[in-house]
């Protein structure tokens, strides 16, 4: 009686061990198949993802990069008061017009009323939260009334977009004016 029960016990144990080994083997196999090779190289993640992250394409360039091909404009822009304003905010990302050394598209160039809107994005006085130390602001239509022109004038009629004070300073020099016009 006693003997019999022990042998039954043994066979259960053997079954259990075999089952565990099979499960372990399957688990190991599954791990080999489903886990990416570089998983765990540097930590609990796929090490190769670092390379994938590095290969995200750069679509925005720097202002300096425009210089190669748009020399005169960049020169004006660089020497003017707007040199901290990015070309690509006003025109869209570099990657939209040049890719792999080819001109692949057209960057938007704003005209007329759109230009006014663009300028007001940064220079609008109604938005009070703007720190005075960062930027000078104007209100519409006061600014235009003050200058004595019709209120449908767009900003680019007096301010050169790439250096807003260029023409104004030129005019001042020509007229010998020191004070604001």
């Amino acid at each position, binding site marked *: 009686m006693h003997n019999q029960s022990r042998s039954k016990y043994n066979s259960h144990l053997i079954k259990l061990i075999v089952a565990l080994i099979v499960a372990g083997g399957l688990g190991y196999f599954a791990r080999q198949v489903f886990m990416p090779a570089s998983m765990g190289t*540097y930590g*609990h*993640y796929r090490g190769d993802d670092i390379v994938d992250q590095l290969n*995200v394409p750069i679509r925005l360039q720097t202002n300096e990069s425009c210089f*190669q*091909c748009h020399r005169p404009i960049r020169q004006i822009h660089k020497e003017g008061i707007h040199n901290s304003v990015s070309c690509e905010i006003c025109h869209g990302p570099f990657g939209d017009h040049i890719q792999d050394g080819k001109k692949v598209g057209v960057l938007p160039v704003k005209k007329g009323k759109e230009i006014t809107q663009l300028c007001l994005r940064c220079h609008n006085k109604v938005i009070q*939260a703007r720190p005075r130390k*960062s930027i000078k602001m104007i209100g519409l239509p006061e600014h235009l009334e003050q200058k004595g022109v019709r209120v449908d004038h767009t900003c680019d009629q007096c301010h050169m977009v790439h250096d807003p004070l260029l023409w104004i300073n030129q005019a001042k020099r020509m007229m010998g004016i020191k004070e604001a016009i």
Partner: protein
Amino acid sequence: MIDIKKEIERDRRAFIKKVLGGSIAGSLLLVLPAGAVDIAEQIPGMREEKAVFTAKRFAFVVDITACIGCGSCCVADKAEYNVPDGHYRTWVERYIIDDHDNVFVDCPDGGLHGYIRAREGLPHPTRDTFFVPKLCNMCEKPSCVQVCPVGATYQTKDGFVLVDKTRCVGCSYCIQACPYSVRFISPATHTAEKCTWCYHRVRKGLLPACVEVCPVHARKFGDLNDKNSEVYKILHEPHVISVLKPDMGNKPALHYVGLRREVV
């Protein structure tokens, strides 16, 4: 054809000028220099870093006392990553605090189109108003990494918290875990996405796109191991500096200059 290539090698710039000037017709497609060419390194010493992880400790500083809320950073970010409409990797909030200490926050389209209108219909006169740009805080102890069940979100040894698109199963745990709400599920890939501090640009020595375009230099990025970097100087000199939600214990590497206590 071969001649043209030789010509390019000889003097690229002069050649482009000639082409743009129209003296060499019809060869425009051949000559434009591929992608990024000789742009000066913007983060000192970055291009010598060849190892998988850099030996740098990066920090991001946002100067609230300079930000004009123009949304250039948001435009740049959307352009760099083709971020789907209605989702934002970085955004700019407008805070208005009135003289009864009520706080009003708005953020139309994440600031992508700038702030066009003043906020109207507030009950009391305004006491204080400012813009707060938000982006990934790159926590030293990121809760999003802790909760990710598949190891898709991870922290590199140099401190970047990144998302592996191929591993992410879109379970959104990380979105709930992030105290700063910088994550979203991209409708295109159905995986979690967030600001990476432009890892791909930084590793190539360029500044993050939003830092590059900021017209008032409100966003600053640099290496804290470099004692000459601007961020080092800001964080080691007297300034009003703070991080968002310090009580969460995530230890963000994103610092704000001039942060008001009302900001969450």
